[in-house]
């Protein structure tokens, strides 16, 4: 596979390591009232779609960017690659 890195252009997938669902960005607040339930859902309840999937890849043999890759799990077609940091910010994550 080829991943079109937003900063570096097309790179071979061998340079990356895979983590999983990009929903891992949405870490709940550990101080919340129902934190235990939220963390359980965050960590263990995942969708397993046959089709478009947003997932986290780490450019370990490269610039060490975490990327959010939108990949079709049926065809491996990659339709979008974003810096995870930008995605996290867009989802309201900060400090």
């Amino acid at each position: 596979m080829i991943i079109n890195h937003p900063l570096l252009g097309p790179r071979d997938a061998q340079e990356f390591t895979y983590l999983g669902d990009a929903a891992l960005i949405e870490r709940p607040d550990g101080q919340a009232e129902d934190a235990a339930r939220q963390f359980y859902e965050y960590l263990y309840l995942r969708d397993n779609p046959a089709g478009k999937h947003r997932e986290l890849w780490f450019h370990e043999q490269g610039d060490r960017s975490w990327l959010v890759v939108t990949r079709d799990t049926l065809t491996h077609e990659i339709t979008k690659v974003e810096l995870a940091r930008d995605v996290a910010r867009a989802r309201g994550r900060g400090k």
Partner: protein
Amino acid sequence: MTQVNRLSGGLIDRSQTLSFTFDGKRYRGHGGDTLASALLANGVRLMGRSFKYHRPRGVLSAGSEEPNALVELRTGARQEPNTRATTAELFDGLEAKSQNRWPSLAFDAMAINDRFSAFFTAGFYYKTFMWPAAFWEKLYEPIIRRAAGLGSISLEPDPDSYDKGFMHCDLLVIGAGPAGLSAALTAGRAGARVILADEDYLPGGRLNAETIAVGTQSGSAWAAAVLAELTDLPNVRVMLRTTVIGAFDHGIYGAVERVSDHLAVPPEGKPRQILWRITSKRALLCAGAIERPIAFANNDRPGILLAGALRAYVNRWAAAPARDVVIFGNNDDAHRSAVDLIAKGVHVAAVVDTRARAIARGEYELIAGAQVIGSAGRLGLSRVEVRLASGEIRRIDCGALGVSGGWNPNVHLTCHQRGRPVWREDIAAFVPGPDGPVGLRVAGAAAGLFSTAETLSSGSAAAVAALGDLGISARAARPPETEDAPVAITPFWHVSGGKGRAWLDQQNDVTVKDVKLAHQENFRSVEHLKRYTTLGMATDQGKTSNLGGLAVMAELTGQTIAETGTTIFRPPYTPVALGVLAGRARGKEFRPVRKSPSHRWAEEQGAVFVETGMWLRAQWFPKPGETHWRESVDREVLATRRSVGICDVTTLGKIDVQGSDAAAFLNRIYANGFAKLAVGKVRYGLMLREDGIAMDDGTAARLAQDHFVVTTTTANAVSVYRHMEFARQCLWPDMDVQLISTTESWAQFSVAGPNARRLLQKVVDPEHDLSNAAFPYMACGEITVCGGLRARLFRISFSGELAYEIAVPTRYGDAMIRRLMAAGAEFDVVAYGTEALGVMRIEKGHAAGNELNGTTTARNLGMAQMMSRAKDSIGAVLSEREGLTAPDGLVLVGLRPVDPSQQVLAGAHLMIRGTVANAANDQGYITSAAYSPNLGYSIGLALLRNGAARIGEVIEAVSPLTGLNVEVEVVSPHFIDPEGERLRA
């Protein structure tokens, strides 16, 4: 022996005579021959024995689709089994052997299987070896294993080397037949970066096997002229002897180049084969078509081969399997073989065509509306039996029979990403479907375009279209005048009513009857049919047999062939040597070796090294006279605790953390608090996974308000860094914090023992006060050593002794170890390895990888009180889960044997005395164990249920595997200096 069946002409080099042996007998061939063509020229039709029934077999094909003529090539370590004689290029001195026969190819004892064929039908294994179950391991499996497989391997290491390579191109053209050559020429002339790959050593594909003219030249001359032009184009790379084996995601193709297989031994410094990974923007499949046979009784005798292959042997290699030949077909192309054979002086006794209205194309007897229904000849064909349209039987003497059931487009690569081929009734063949790999087009016979004119024009048109996608404009040249005959075929799959078995898959000995049996026993889907009968398995993957098998099944189920479908094609296209997949990653080159900065010095000391991940670390340093590792390790431990020892700890991961939010960041990464760590101080830190399980531990040293150095374990250096980057980029993207791995930037040594300070004072520049007051336990700082060399000093201890870790830039690591050892001479300093390191940390009760084993929490490790509850750190919430906080959970304890002479064994499980040793009674297990030279007995660390409350209890350590059963006393895990006085000295 003369080449009795060598004809005139052909594309062989008669000036070159090559000598070779087959089963020890010497023959001669010419340059350009394959082993198969040379054997045929020498009058050898019998080349192998079939897999199951040991039936005599000869070549069926003239290419890589060959199911029968599998031989062992070469001898000694280079011996390679199951090589297709049809693709093995002849070289002088080639030694080939037939397979699967004993004692000889002509007389094979195992041919007795053929007599018992009634027992060996489809599903034989499933039905026969069912019971009794106890027979399986002892009786059935050994018998099957002995009988299975065709060739044998040398069992010696492969003496050749294999390489891997990467290439990029605009257009990859797969196949250098008429379509591929015309495509490559069009794209090459347009200036695109083109790779043209072909499995053959002679480009041209079928043009080399035909007498078809292209323009004013012969097909092969046209191919040679195109090749010459392509070779001159700097933007085109022609790769012969290169098989594209698989189509992978995003335009990536795998290819195996056989660099040296056509030579006796690879040239000095050259690999035998190269595995190429080709990243293409567009690809074009011009893989041609493969002829399929028609099944009839005893259609597997040596001398019976595909009509197109027969033509190829005669035209390209000037070799005929026999001088009297019959052709049997259901299509016009079969007649081409008759015409070409006659032109070469081979006698065509008859052409048997299943079609009643077939028309003769030359001077031969045409028997229309007839079928070959049987054959005779023990080790080679001598006669065929023909059933005429009238029903009469006629016998015709012949030494070879060319069979053609039509041609199958070579759709293989279009299916590698689950694409499904589509049935075309008009040409009676599957063609590539619309769902092939993205960016791959198909041209020529592979697309179902069978005339030479169509292949030429479709090749260049496809190249123009592919380059158009890339914005490269190309013009299709006007193709030369050539043959443009339409496909004329009436599907015909198998002859019924003959006496004897009709073979569909000759590689796996699958007959029409086997397919009928599978149908009868309800294994009707093509995938079930394949597994039940083994149709289409093994080295040829059913290239010549699949369609025949599924056509029979379609007939039985009353479905169309389109409804029946095909099995899934998977990479590799043809068999691949395991060596080329491994490449250079063999033996010690399997992965890179990392050596610490003191490696050379340690080698000089005679150190014994151990692999920890990629690192080589000194395990112990044997002294003269020490014969057992324990002697060395005990000495190193005792000397360190008595005076001072030095250990290279460079391999521990080091992560530099900087930024105004560095402290806040670490406070979330570690389970314990870091926000208030003072500058100049180090703290032990435990990292959890988000699920609450301990991930790694280490230290974080605060060198400045906004600057920390974090250490990780050697094993987790990479994964911890990845995890921290995840937290930084994905969880808290606006924190002002930067990370970089500095593991390889600093050489780091632990200096431990009561004399550690005195030793270091000799090395550290005098302006740095190392006194206990100025540089207490858990202090850190940036210092200089040896007169101005910058260094870092950390007063941390894994051994439990007064200890420091000193870091210098890596390039000074070798000098530093020598300086430290020299400075320590007056204290009888020892170097210690990982083994002594392990003994001392067990004596001290420090958890390590054995305890942080992916199942343990801070609570299990006895660190519950260290956890900060005032903050949100990774893993904090779920570490408090029900189940992880049960009151009788496992807790780290120490163990010592009640009888000091007995050994504590890691891995042993703990049981209450007198209870049965089973899972229900399990109290925990021993994680680490060592002999403590300080205590004089064996000690262990264990995870014990409710362990903290059980100090003093005597329990049993059992290991049913080794029969061990030792009484041990539960003690504090801190065997040495539990108050920590030594650390703070």
